[in-house]
């Protein structure tokens, strides 16, 4: 019997545009991109290819000078079409013109007995060379893990509680054996255990329930219950000096495929979601895919924002932009760039709020009501007026207001004492959502993490 962790704090943002469980076939896109900006912790990316080079799926494209072993590879085979740079020649995108038939860079296949015989060092080298390592993240800091560390535990979240998040049971169906191999391989690294947490409020996950060599947990409650950081906090919190790793079911499956099939497989199922999508549904794509064809003829209006990822933590991309490395969801929202007369005063049932101040009546709606939220900030930036609301949406034994203030004042000791090691951006995304004074809390937390990292 698995004990259920119950959390009460948090908030479910029920947006319109949930993906229907059906995988829509589309013709493969022409271009793909690897975006160094997707990887937190990359400081000085070094290119290993130039425009005009041909690559195969799994060919290294760049590495970071800070950790040269970890390679970032091409998701598909084809020709390097364009290298996009921004201000100060910052590397933004490496675009690949894809072949019709994907050719894979050669890699060795391993039988399960061979896998058992591999040492930790061998595995680390293979994962780094083949471009799969960036799936493994380190806590504290939420950066790409260092292959030489020995993590205390490894945590995986078995579901996503973010707004309109894809259903893991649906997108990972049929991947059980790869995920199992991924678990067996990561078990070579860990001092303690591998932990995987599933949603206690849904049917016991078919994909994850049969897994072995892993500690299964159940968690119940509103978002951010599905965040791995929250799960770690309730299972075995991060302390000063600890190093933990986290990864995703996708990362586990990709590791499994590399060893079992001998190829870097970037294929994944993603959800196209959001209030501005005509037919929200799932698509089978590859990491870094151009989203142009997916959005074509599938949008309700023109004044929109395309987000790679979910509405709380994702990144704005162009309508013909590219899916982020870690994302398995696209959210399309209305751009809220129109002023509203006395908008701050108007009573409204349509706009979602955790609060119940004057005119905010959404709390009277049935729980299942779906909202069409746009990207308007709904108010302007003001000084922090404490309203005790951050505390209601962070299900951790942490005082968020005090932590944010410690970061703003750059007080290192306070940050550490107040628990900065336990959070990353996604854990405080709801604090940012509910903030009355409209601060960019996620950025504040990342700034704090960087301060500590570089201290």
């Amino acid at each position, binding site marked *: 019997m698995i004990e259920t962790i119950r959390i009460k704090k948090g908030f479910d*943002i029920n*947006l319109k545009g949930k993906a229907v469980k059906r995988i829509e076939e589309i013709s493969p896109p022409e271009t793909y991109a690897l975006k160094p900006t997707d990887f937190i912790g990359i400081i000085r990316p070094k290119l290993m290819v130039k425009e005009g080079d041909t690559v195969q799926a799994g060919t290294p494209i760049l590495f970071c000078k800070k950790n040269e072993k970890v390679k970032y590879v091409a998701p598909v085979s084809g020709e390097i079409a364009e290298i996009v740079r921004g201000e100060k020649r910052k590397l933004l995108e490496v675009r690949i013109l894809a072949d019709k038939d994907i050719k894979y860079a050669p890699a060795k296949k391993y039988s399960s007995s061979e896998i058992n015989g591999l040492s930790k060092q061998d595995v680390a080298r293979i994962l780094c060379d083949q471009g799969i390592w960036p799936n493994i993240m380190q806590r504290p800091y939420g950066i790409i893990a260092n292959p030489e560390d020995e993590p205390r535990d490894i945590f995986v979240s078995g579901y996503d509680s973010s*707004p309109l998040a894809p259903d893991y049971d649906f997108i990972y169906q049929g991947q059980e054996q790869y995920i199992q191999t991924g678990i067996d391989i990561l078990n070579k690294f860990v001092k303690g255990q591998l932990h995987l947490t599933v949603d206690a409020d849904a049917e016991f996950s078919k994909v994850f329930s049969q897994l072995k060599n892993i500690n299964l947990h159940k968690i119940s409650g509103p978002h951010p219950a599905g965040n791995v950081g929250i799960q770690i906090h309730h299972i075995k919190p991060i*302390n000063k*000096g600890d190093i933990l790793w986290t990864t995703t079911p996708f990362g586990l499956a990709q590791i499994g495929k590399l060893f079992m099939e001998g190829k870097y497989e970037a294929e994944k199922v993603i959800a196209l979601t959001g209030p501005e999508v005509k037919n929200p549904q799932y698509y089978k794509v590859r990491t870094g895919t151009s989203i142009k064809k997916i959005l074509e003829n599938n949008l309700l209006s023109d004044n929109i*924002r395309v*987000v790679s990822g979910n*509405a*709380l*933590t994702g*990144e*704005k991309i162009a309508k013909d932009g590219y899916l982020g490395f870690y994302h398995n969801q696209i959210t399309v*929202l209305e751009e*809220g*760039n129109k002023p*509203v*007369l*006395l*908008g*701050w*005063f108007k009573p*409204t049932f349509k706009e*979602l*709020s955790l*609060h*119940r*101040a*004057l*005119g*905010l009546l*959404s709390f009277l709606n049935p729980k299942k009501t779906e909202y069409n*939220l746009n*990207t*308007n*900030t*709904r*108010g*302007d930036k*003001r*000084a922090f*007026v*404490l*309203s*005790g609301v951050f*505390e209601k949406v962070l299900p951790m*034994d942490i*005082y968020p207001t*005090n932590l944010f203030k410690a970061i703003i004042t750059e007080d290192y000791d306070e940050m550490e*004492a*107040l628990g900065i090691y336990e959070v990353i*951006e996604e854990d405080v995304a709801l604090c940012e*959502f*509910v*903030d*009355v*004074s*409209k601060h*960019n*809390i996620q*950025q504040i937390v990342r700034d704090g993490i960087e301060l500590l990292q570089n201290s």
Partner: protein
Amino acid sequence: MKFLEDLVNNLKPNFEKGGKFEKLYWVFEGFETFLFQMGTTTSGKGVHVRDAIDLKRLMITVVIAMVPATIFGMWNVGHQHFLAIGQEVGFWLKFWIGFKLVLPIIIVSYAVGLGIEFIFTSIKKHPIAEGFLVTGMLIPLVVPPTIPLWQVALATAFAVIIGKEVFGGTGMNIFNVALTARAFLYFAYPQEISGEIWTYFGDQVPIDSYSGATALAVAAATEGSSTVLGDFANAWQEGFYSLKNLFIGAVPGSIGETSTFMILIGAVILWLTRVGSGKIMFSVFVGAYIMGLIFNFFGANPYMEMPAHYHLVTGGLAFGAVFMATDPVTATQTETGKWIYGFFIGILTVLIRVLNPAYPEGIMLAILLMNTFAPLIDFYIVKANKKRRLQRATV
């Protein structure tokens, strides 16, 4: 809608960099954001959707919670006036007299306060915070109806400048701004703010039997073998200081503080909307009641013997508990801290009332005192959290 939008857009260049009124940009911004929810969108990274709340909605909710007490206060000013001169008139005439007296006080408070906010906003180049929406309403409710308007102006100016702006503006102040105004009046004009100031006579002469003393003044003046309840019962008019009348609030006092009933309606609004902390409100009442009981136990003088529940309906306790102590900027931030903070405000209020001979009301000083201690309470509660984290690490 379109017309207003065009008007604002036409005026805007005058206030932007290089425009004629460049210095007043943030004042303009204040008005603009008041008129419109702007078309600003979330940044490309971080949350893409935001909660519909903003500071304006939060603040206006508090103002709305004060409306019942304000309306009742206006009526009561007229009611006390006609009681004093011995005339019986209808509801609307009473309300009208009060309205005529109270409205100028409200206007002066807002005009002076907002004027200063605009000046500071322009000098310091930061957006106008909506905090004064609440403060501007609180100040008129804690002063006597007969207060000269220049005193209102002076107190408001003092409170906004010394109480708030010197600390860096809304959100940074240590003391509750409205109470700073009240304290300023109390210490700067002690003579003017005591005695027969609670009732407006106009050019009329009060009837002989009338006494405009507040219940707390009567209680504090009780001496010798008589009891407070006995003195209450011997009021100039039968039932004037009865528990019921004190609860309803048809007694002399500051404009908004007399009616516990109307204030409780505001408390329910604040509690239901979660804008004000129910924990603080509740624990202030509990603290006051327990301190009342402790005094009952000793019973060394008639005031100490006054039944504890009378403390809850007299003076400004309810108003302070609901509208002043819950100010999120100056109260404790931690949830545990709110219980402690409120509880001590209650205790101190009754302590000051009963033991301090100079001034019959204690809630003002109690809240200001606890304002100073709020960060300390939080400090220890947060310290306990840090300790938990540290202990975990050594295991």
